[in-house]
């Protein structure tokens, strides 16, 4: 088992942790953080993979991911803040007027 295997494992664990955070938490901010963790887990896997294949494109991808994540967080936070301002809640499940 090469190093990359352990790093991938780390990435998976991080992904699971992020996923669990998304699943379990009701707070919008925390869910967002969970998503970020998942994205970063992917980044780690990319790094491990580029380690395995000896190619740089995986690592390059990580930079893209960072940019994307930043954009996403910016938009997301703006949305959440706006919503919180309107309805006074950042509990995900209070947003349930649309259903059925």
């Amino acid at each position, binding site marked *: 088992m090469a190093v990359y295997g352990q790093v991938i494992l780390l990435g998976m664990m991080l992904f699971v942790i992020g*996923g669990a955070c*998304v*699943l379990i938490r*009701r707070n919008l901010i925390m*869910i967002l953080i969970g998503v970020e963790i998942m994205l970063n887990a992917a980044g780690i896997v990319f790094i491990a993979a580029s380690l395995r294949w000896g190619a740089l494109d995986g690592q390059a991808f990580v930079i893209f991911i960072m940019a994307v994540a930043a954009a996403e967080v910016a938009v997301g936070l703006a949305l959440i803040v706006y919503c919180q301002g309107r309805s006074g809640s950042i509990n*995900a*499940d209070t*947003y*349930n*007027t*649309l*259903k*059925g």
Partner: protein
Amino acid sequence: MKPILLLLMLFPLLGGLFSALFGRRVSRWTVERVACAGVILSFIMALIAFDSSGGKHQIITFFTWFQVADFSVLMDVRFDPLAAFMALTVTFVSSLIHIYSVGYMKHDEGYVRYFCYLNLFVFSMLVITLADNLVFLFLGWEGVGFCSYGLIGFWYKDMKNASAGRKAFLLTRIGDVAFGIAIGLFFLIFNSLSITYINGHADILTPGTMTLFGLLLLWAAAGKSAQLPLSVWLPDAMAGPTPVSALIHAATMVTAGVYLLMRLFPVFSGSATAMAFIAVAGTLTAFYGACAALMQGDIKRVLAYSTISQLGYMFLAVGAGNITAGMFHLVTHAFFKALLFLAAGCVIHALHEEQNIFRMGKKLRLALPGVYWPFLAGAAALSALPPTAGFFSKDEILISTFLHAGIFYKFLWFIAILTAALTALYTFRLFFIVFTGESLYYEEESEKSVEKPPPNMIATLWPLGVLAIFAGLLNLPAGWGGGGWLSEYFLNIPGAAHHGEIPHSVENGMAIASAVIGIFGIICAWFLYGPKGLLRRPDLPGAWGGLFDLLREAFYLDWLYRRYIAWPFEKMADILWNRVDREGIDRGLYSFANTFMLFSQILREWTSGRLSGYLFMLFMGLTVILCLLAINFSIL
């Protein structure tokens, strides 16, 4: 020949069409004249055709109606002595009835409809009479049913009349089913629908098939000719105007059944079973009709049951294998029954639509001698008093039955002669109650004066009266010095086999027996129903009341129909509609559709609106997909 026959059939049709299309635009006078002219011209054509044919058989095709491969339906006629004779009778009696109708319907608003139907009726009957192709014959056969429907229910404002028409149409159509099946079988077996062809090749039929045909045709004829068990429509058919009753009972409609049997005689004559069935049906009906006629209080119903009874005799004649006798009786019956009905019509007319015989009496005899005498002639003929026409024709039937092989036929003969006595009894019961003694209802006497019917009504009675008495000359037995003209004339009719010499002893004995029996019946009638008769009352007291009701209601046959056929049929319709169609099938389909709605409601809950649930499903879905992949992977 062809144009004559064509005109013979077309005249009434054109008359009917004229009334239908233009009747409302022209004067009443025109409509009446056109209608009468249609039938009278037809009668003249029939005379010419009769004269020029000279007893030969002719088959003339007018044109092809339709044709699919060998299923070819032609509009063609077979003009043979049987048809010629029948056509003469039909047109002659119908002509008189038309003329009579002009007077009878003088004040009725619906005269256009009336004459239209009447003409079409005659046309349809002529089609039955002449047609060679069975489907063409069926055209007339159904046409008669339809016209009778219209005429019986002519005064449609009263639902009872309309229902009577409906009943007639329905019951005759139940008979038509058998006719239809017979047509189908003929087509199957012979690949032809021509009566001539079928009769000519009837020898290829096995006895079993012949029996089948016999029964089918019997059933068909029973519908039209009101034989048991399809007889119930005829008494109700009295709902129509009286000339219509005369037309239906005398010359047209009801004789169609018998005529059909005679026309297709070779098809079943080889089967003793079929013949026996026909004979039995005839005999039973004759007896049944006579019994029922005995207790009726309505002048037309008496005559109606008498018609049923007399038609039974004709069936018996066919069943006994003597269609000449059958035809003979058909013709004489046409004369005297038309006469009786028309006379009854005069009576009814004179008393302002009064049909209850117990409201009549000797005032009628005094006021209407012109009706009284013809009626008496008709009654005598119906009672088969010698030497009226009815005597000879009925006698011939009795002789044939008596001489027919088998003890069974002797038994039928016995019932037939018993019925003859009953016939005389009910006929003269009617005659005595209507024309002698006092009316049972005095209080209304003053209100109703007797109105003299128009002369053209009375006038038509006389020729019929003469014929009722002298038509026997047509086929006077040898013993009476006659040459049996009709028998000679019918010699070549398929199936009308000559019956060999009739022993003189039988002939004479039979004549004496019927004469005695007839006279005996009349004497009984005098004592029971004469001016001072014992039973001259509309009902009977005590224990006899039940019997009286039984006879008056004609053995409750009508009630049985209603109770066991009509009512369940309607009930079943209701059940099928409400229980099966609506609540069963339709609702079943709806509940099937509603299960989808139910699923939909359940699935709707899935979209709960809660983000956590959605996220959960996202990961659930991921898990499921991974599991699926894993399973695939491990299987492959």
